């Protein structure tokens, strides 16, 4: 559940930048402090070693010069005055001994470090404490002096030096983080402005976003958005025009229905009443067909590609459509001919939609030809590409009107037959969805042909 919640909340760019910059700053600061401490340790070590060497030499020289007074030395040193012991002053312990191992003298709290170790610096542990020691001997090797101080004091010193260096930076860290916060906010302001521009838009305002003022990083986003807005605008315009046209087209059949119904109510002549009522039915059928076609177009319009294409045989589509239209053709005293090859014409698509397209073409042919005309439905290959066609031997269409035929609600200037002007628009859309194009032309020798030509070659049948 927590996972789901986290997934649902979109990542904030600002928070992400803030987190990264803050973490980097703190990390850098920590690293600098650690490095400072390390360097301080080395420096303090060198300093202390130097002091130890100085002290050891002094002690050795003193011991060589006068072994007699050696016993008094610690007391003498302890009695010295003039300055208080400084914090950084070393708590040096020492012991002086002969090369044989007998201790001549030692400071009060000198650790019992082994006396037989080598000369020079050494780190040794004694009595639960780490010590840093330096052993020197006289040139004749008779006397040795060992000076030592606890490693703890050195570490403490180094830490103090490092802390002194780090403290000012540590104090600066909070204002620095605040600065980072405000900088990030300010830096991202153009994005916020852009977001606000989009957020406060009314749905009607689909004007392009100002690309010039957007930051360079957001340019591609703004451009993509503008392209989307453009397409949206065009789609909406189309929709509005279509809705207006559709409402407009519905008015005439509605007006006819109303007038015929009013006549049926007003007349006393039963024959006229019967005629008017029959006309009401015809009108209702026409309005129904118009609404069906409108719905079909409205459903096809938003589709970008066929939702569920499958392998089908165009010859089968042509045959089924011709069968369906058979009785309508016979009733209109027209001949319906089917021309299909024996081998299947395989394409991928939606057989129902293609059926609707062919039915629309057949309906048009039946509607715009005189009685006795022949309508030919055919499927096949042309130059290896699938083809579905409906042709008639009627009067054809005026050449200057051919290109407007697929426009919605276009009915033709000479049109006297009833139609809603949506048939070819639907065929056009179905063709588009199948990657085919709709070609309309007058046939030589009279007649009109509408053909769906596939752009791709026929697919091998399964």
């Amino acid at each position, binding site marked *: 559940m927590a996972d789901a919640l986290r997934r649902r909340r979109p990542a904030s760019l600002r928070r992400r930048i803030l987190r990264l910059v803050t973490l980097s700053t703190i990390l850098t600061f920590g690293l600098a402090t650690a490095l400072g401490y390390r360097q301080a340790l080395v420096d303090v070590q060198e300093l202390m070693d130097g002091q130890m060497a100085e002290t050891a030499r002094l002690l050795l020289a003193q011991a060589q010069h006068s072994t007699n007074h050696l016993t008094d030395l610690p007391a003498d040193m302890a009695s010295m005055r003039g300055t208080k012991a400084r914090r950084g002053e070393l708590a040096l312990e020492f012991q002086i001994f002969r090369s044989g191992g007998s201790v001549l003298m030692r400071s009060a709290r000198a650790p019992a470090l082994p006396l037989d170790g080598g000369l020079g610096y050494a780190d040794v542990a004694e009595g639960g404490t780490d010590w840093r020691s330096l052993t020197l001997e006289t040139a004749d090797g008779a006397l040795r002096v060992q000076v030592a101080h606890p490693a703890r004091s050195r570490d403490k010193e180094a830490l103090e030096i490092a802390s002194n260096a780090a403290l000012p930076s540590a104090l600066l860290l909070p204002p620095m983080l605040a600065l980072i916060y405000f900088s990030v906010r300010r830096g991202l302001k153009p994005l916020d402005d852009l977001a606000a521009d989009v957020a406060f838009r009314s749905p009607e305002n689909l004007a392009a976003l100002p690309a010039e003022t957007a930051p360079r990083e957001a340019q591609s986003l703004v451009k993509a958005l503008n392209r989307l807005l453009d397409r949206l605008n065009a789609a909406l315009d189309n929709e509005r025009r279509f809705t207006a046209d559709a409402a407009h087209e519905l008015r005439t059949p509605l007006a006819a229905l109303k007038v015929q119904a009013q006549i049926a109510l*007003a007349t006393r002549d039963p024959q006229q009443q019967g005629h008017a009522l029959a006309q009401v039915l015809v009108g209702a059928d026409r309005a129904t067909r118009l609404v069906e076609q409108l719905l079909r177009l409205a459903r096809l319009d938003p589709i970008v590609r066929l939702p569920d294409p499958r392998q089908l045989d165009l010859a089968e589509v042509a045959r089924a459509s011709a069968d369906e239209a058979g009785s309508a053709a016979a009733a209109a005293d027209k001949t319906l001919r089917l021309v299909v090859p024996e081998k299947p014409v395989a394409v991928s698509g939606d057989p129902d939609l293609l059926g609707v397209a062919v039915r629309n073409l057949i309906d048009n042919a039946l509607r715009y030809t005189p009685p006795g005309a022949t309508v030919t439905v055919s499927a096949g290959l042309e130059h290896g590409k699938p083809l579905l066609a409906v042709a008639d031997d009627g009067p054809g269409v005026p050449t200057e009107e051919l290109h407007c035929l697929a426009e919605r609600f276009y009915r033709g200037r000479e049109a006297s037959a009833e139609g809603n002007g949506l048939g070819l628009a639907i065929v056009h859309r179905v063709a588009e969805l199948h990657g085919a194009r709709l070609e309309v032309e007058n046939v030589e020798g009279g007649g009109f042909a509408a053909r769906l030509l596939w752009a791709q070659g026929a697919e091998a049948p399964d």
Partner: protein
Amino acid sequence: MRVLVVEDDALLGDGIRAGLKLADYAVDWVRDGEAARLALLDHQYHACVLDLGLPKKDGLAVLKDLRARGDALPVLILTARDTSADKVTGLDAGADDYLTKPFDLAELQARLRALIRRAAGTTTPFCEHAGVVLDPATRRVTRDGQPVAISGREYALLHDLMIHKNRLRTRAQLEESLYAWGEETESNTLEVYIHHLRKKLGADFVSTVRGVGYRVGDDS
């Protein structure tokens, strides 16, 4: 009263024709702009119901042609185009009235009555002469307050004569007014209707202008 209906939709055109016939108009119905132009050239109408979106010639073009000829025929535009701009364009092109689809048959009839009345120059909705009152809204005729039974054709003839009160109506004008296409009848039917009217409204209600036509009212 003869009316030209220009409507390309078969169902609606049939309906308008039937509806106007119910009101005793003689109705000619054409289905494209070209046929409308020819009909308007060839015949005398009392009014025209004009659709705008027509095959062959747009309704507005038909109307502009008509007005360019100086024809004052009352024209009612009947269309699905319903925006203010459409109405302004239609009226400015010379239409006398504008009605949008769908519409009420009764309203169309009333508007036509008003158009015809105004075109005849009368102000009252009734036609009145010598104690005879004709009410176009109810198509009732009274003589001295008493209702007169009258047939459709008789009514149409009487309406024409009374709306053109004090003016001579020629035989040709009256025949044009009474009959739509395909309704041509024998040459003496007009005399038969005049005879009926005289019987019902008084022998001298309609005067004959010998060899020319008929008149209701005085020679002016």
